[in-house]
């Protein structure tokens, strides 16, 4: 007996052929299906329905297209509604505007109005919105190059607003930044920085003021009546300088205003001081006349108010200053004005405000 070769022993062709002929067993189809389903479950896949590949290949493109369409339509809608969204409604403005115009200050206020519009437009640009629509600049009475020189960044529609505010071309031409104006602004900045220090209230004075009654009704009524009268006079005689007329009344209002303001500030800062102050007779004299003791404001309050005013467009800011001045809050008005001049050094102030601001 000899050993068979390795090849022969390892694979026998006849045996293989016979085995293959007999080997026809297979697992039942149900078992196949169960195993395949388990395999799909394991990978989280499902059998592909007809057209799956098509929808899958187009899904990304369709999603991108849909997002683009939505974005464009949203931006378009927002641009259309930009004036309402960006600029606050000017419904509260006409009263102040008409007052100023009737006082013959239209010429001076045209500058602030234009600058305010420029700011609004700039804000619109910043948030990607369309600036407010208005008339073309042709009615301004100024040729296009002049207009561009006066408002290098503004657009045509801004000029429409300028026209509405009856701005004189000569005034516009003057509104270039001059070196002297910049120097003035720098001086004003220094003065404004010094102002809060000068006005820093002493703690005991603040406490006294906080305890002061809110207002004497008679004084308030007088102040309001005075303001109304003053307004009427301004309307009837626009050319006349109203400073001499209004100043005494403003002083009278100032007797009330600083006390109330400081009381508010104190109540905000000192929670213990929230209890209502003891009532005082209406005839009780106020704590101190504003001339003797300049209306002391706690710096944080003043700063926050200034910051709030700084958010306003220039013409509104000036109106705020004017209101403060009319209410007799001269120190606040001065601080705000100094801040304003710091912010807008080349801005032309209304004549009344300019006279008042002179030391």
């Amino acid at each position, binding site marked *: 007996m000899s050993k068979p070769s*390795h090849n022969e022993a390892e694979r026998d062709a006849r*045996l293989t052929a016979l085995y293959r002929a007999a080997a026809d067993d297979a697992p039942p189809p149900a078992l196949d299906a169960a195993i395949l389903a388990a395999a799909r479950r394991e990978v989280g896949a499902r059998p592909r329905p007809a057209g799956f590949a098509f929808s899958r290949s187009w899904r990304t493109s369709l999603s991108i297209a849909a997002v683009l369409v939505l974005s464009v339509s949203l931006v378009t809608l927002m641009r259309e509604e930009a004036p309402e969204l960006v600029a606050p409604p000017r419904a509260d403005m006409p009263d102040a505007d008409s007052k100023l115009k009737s006082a013959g200050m239209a010429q001076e206020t045209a500058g602030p109005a234009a600058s305010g519009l420029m700011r609004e437009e700039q804000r619109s640009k910043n948030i990607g919105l369309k600036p407010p629509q208005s008339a073309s600049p042709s009615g301004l009475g100024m040729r296009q190059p002049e207009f561009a020189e006066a408002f290098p960044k503004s657009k045509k529609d801004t000029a429409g607003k300028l026209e509405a505010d009856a701005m004189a071309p000569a005034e516009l031409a003057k509104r270039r930044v001059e070196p002297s104006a910049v120097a003035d602004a720098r001086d004003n900045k220094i003065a404004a920085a010094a102002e809060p220090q000068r006005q820093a209230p002493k703690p005991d004075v603040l406490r006294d003021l906080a305890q002061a009654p809110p207002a004497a009704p008679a004084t308030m009524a007088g102040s309001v009546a005075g303001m109304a009268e003053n307004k009427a006079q301004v309307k009837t005689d626009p050319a006349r300088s109203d400073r001499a007329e209004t100043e005494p009344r403003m002083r009278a209002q100032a007797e009330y205003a600083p006390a109330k303001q400081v009381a508010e500030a104190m109540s905000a800062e000192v929670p213990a001081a929230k209890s209502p102050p003891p009532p005082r007779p209406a005839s009780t004299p106020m704590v101190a006349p504003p001339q003797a003791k300049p209306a002391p404001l706690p710096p944080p309050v003043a700063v926050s108010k200034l910051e709030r005013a700084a958010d306003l467009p220039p013409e509104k800011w000036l109106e705020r200053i004017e209101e403060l001045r009319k209410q007799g809050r001269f120190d606040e008005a001065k601080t705000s004005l100094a801040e304003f001049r710091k912010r807008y050094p080349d801005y032309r102030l209304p004549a009344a405000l300019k006279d008042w601001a002179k030391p």
Partner: protein
Amino acid sequence: MERYRDGDAGAFDALYGRHKGGVFRYLARQCGNRGVAEELFQDVWMNLIRARAGYTVQAKFTTYLYRLAHNRLIDHYRAQSGNVPASFDDEAGPSLDEVAGARNDDPAVGADARQQAQRLLQLIENLPAAQRETFLLQQESDMSIEEIAQATGVNRETAKSRLRYAVAKLREGMQQSG
């Protein structure tokens, strides 16, 4: 299998289609019961599915798959009788000289091939489990001696020896029947 590991369920379908028959027949002839074979078959594939995430290429997939099947079968033997068949412990096995008809005795292939095939299956069934396994692995998976050794967890010489004994016995049996 790597594609299936990476989430391609279609790759598993292909693997299953290619190997399901061989694995099933291997299990069926090793355990001798179709119902049990189906159960073992399902377990093998489920083990493969569960091992998907940790699958790394260390050997041919066929070797890996039949290694799973072999292990499941050993578990089955242990569960049935408490230990694996003695032939799996017989590393060297008898010498070839002890095997009758182990030489060039060609099995007589009669006119009725089907009858001969049935006779062969019967002879396979009578082989010791380890030899049978080696023979079945060779026939069903077309693995080499080295791969069979790897799948069954033995060295190459043991696998080779088992195969030679299996083939010699089958030849002898076929010759006798012929």
